[in-house]
């Protein structure tokens, strides 16, 4: 069995397991988990909002690590740098997807729970800034005509990663409309034991989905890089033939 076929089969199995995990997690969130006493059923947004928000703060670090590797390898080992660059763009896109969901589900929840769609408090604003930074990263890569777009984007990514701990700590550093941390937020934090299975399965399911998207997008980018390399080699060979 060839390597690409093995990867394809592994990806398919992973995809099916992920869909099963998300389906089970969604059933737990909507049907099995108890209705929250204060907010009622709208609190069930929590089971999608919090796991995707947590993951939207993890994928930037994949982007950060890959960007550092790209900057280190770009002159020493260009082929390794290309690999790092593929991981970087894949993780940046997945970050934008998860951060978009975090913001959107947060607004839908906020309108029902607080009566407002948006407020410029520290958590919401720093999260919006994170989203804007990674959208900027993608636009820079897409639109820049300098020939240094990937290097500039890698530098931007290093600065963007600084916003991640600010987003995480914002609800502890400042008084915000956003609730205090659900986990690791002191003696009063945490959720009822009956809600933990729904929450845990959603974290697992959406983490598996994020990894699937990351690897699928990475594979697509590597294929694109390979096609570009082939086209460049053909152009060089053609120009050499003309010169002769």
């Amino acid at each position, binding site marked *: 069995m060839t390597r690409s076929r093995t990867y394809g089969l592994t990806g398919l199995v992973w995809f099916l397991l992920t869909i099963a995990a998300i389906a089970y997690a969604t059933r737990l969130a909507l049907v099995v988990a108890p209705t929250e006493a204060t907010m009622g*059923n709208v609190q069930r947004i929590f089971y*999608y909002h919090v796991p995707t928000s947590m993951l939207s703060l993890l994928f930037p670090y994949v982007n950060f690590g890959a960007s550092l590797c790209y900057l280190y390898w770009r002159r020493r080992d260009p082929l390794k740098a290309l690999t790092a660059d593929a991981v970087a763009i894949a993780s940046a896109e997945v970050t934008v997807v998860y951060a978009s969901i975090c913001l*959107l589900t947060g607004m839908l929840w906020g309108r029902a729970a607080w009566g407002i769609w948006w407020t410029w408090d520290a958590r919401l604003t720093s999260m919006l800034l994170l989203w804007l930074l990674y959208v900027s990263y993608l636009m820079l890569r897409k639109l820049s005509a300098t020939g240094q777009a990937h290097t500039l984007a890698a530098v931007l990514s290093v600065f963007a990663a600084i916003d991640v701990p600010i987003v995480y700590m914002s609800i502890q550093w400042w008084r915000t409309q956003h609730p205090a941390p659900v986990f690791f937020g002191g003696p009063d934090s945490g959720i009822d034991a009956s809600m933990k299975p729904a929450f845990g399965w959603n974290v697992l399911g959406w983490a598996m989905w994020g990894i699937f998207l990351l690897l699928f997008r990475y594979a697509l980018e590597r294929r694109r890089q390979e096609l570009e390399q082939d086209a460049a080699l053909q152009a060089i060979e053609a120009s050499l033939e003309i010169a002769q």
Partner: protein
Amino acid sequence: MKLSWIFGPSMEAHHLLYAYVAVWLIQGGYAAWIAWHWMHDGMGARPSDTLNGPNDNS
């Protein structure tokens, strides 16, 4: 617990439904975008099993 309440007229039911559907649409849309490019970009070109260069030990 029955799930039919999620299609009810209340704001909380609407917002919960919108939130869950939005998540599936965004995630599914992005996955479909990758899959579409995977199927259509460089049609006929197969990724080789030796994509990495000779200097790549990964």
